[in-house]
């Protein structure tokens, strides 16, 4: 892959629920331009919303703060990273939800892992969490 073909879009957004739909619009535009089909665009919209919802609800300590999203794209894939500067207690040991128990939470990360081709959950340099998720334009997965 030629590095020159990589585009990077960066977004910094206040940690407020009303902006998650703005982020969905932005990613719809990016994915559309990249040639993703409608089903994959829906997958990406849900996954990015889950990651942003987590950044807003778990990731941020201060009342008024921004969180960050990077969109890195080349011809074959879109890599989305959602960063927060929060408490960072998220680990990879997310258990599969047990629906028998009818828990109202705990679906977010499971949904992200189901809808995206590749998901990494990393500490953000010790001050928060990064959820990095990849979707391929074609059927590489």
């Amino acid at each position: 892959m030629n590095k020159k073909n990589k585009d990077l879009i960066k977004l910094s957004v206040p940690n407020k629920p009303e902006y998650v739909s703005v982020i969905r619009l932005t990613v719809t535009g990016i994915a559309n331009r990249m040639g993703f089909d409608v089903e994959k665009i829906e997958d990406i919209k849900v996954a990015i919303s889950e990651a942003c919802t987590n950044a807003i609800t778990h990731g941020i300590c201060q009342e008024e703060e921004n969180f960050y999203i990077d969109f890195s794209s080349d011809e074959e894939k879109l890599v989305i990273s959602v960063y927060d500067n929060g408490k960072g207690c998220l680990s990879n040991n997310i258990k599969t939800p047990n629906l028998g128990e009818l828990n109202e939470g705990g679906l977010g990360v499971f949904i992200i892992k189901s809808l995206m081709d590749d998901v990494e959950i990393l500490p953000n340099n010790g001050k928060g969490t990064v959820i990095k998720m990849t979707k391929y334009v074609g059927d590489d997965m």
Partner: protein
Amino acid sequence: MSLMINKSYDEANKVWNIKLDGEVDIYTAGSLKDAFMKMLEENKENIKIDAEKLDYIDSTGLGVLIGVLKKLREEEKNIIILNIKPSIKKLLNITGLDKIFVVEG
């Protein structure tokens, strides 16, 4: 890009009809939860959700539905979802919620 909620109680058939139009996410889930809570207070009966114009829902919205179902089950009532879009159907499949709610059409 918002959520509109339309609800009416069908006295004859003892069922709530609720139409959702728009998006359910972290911003709009609260108003959806409030609407359901009022409905349950009035009549704890089956809830039929017309999802024809529901464009988007994520775990925040699914969590609201699960919470409502939990309360309905105390009376052996259920949630029935109609006219669901393929992208939302997929989400119910993935999470197994299609086996917990009644998904029709």
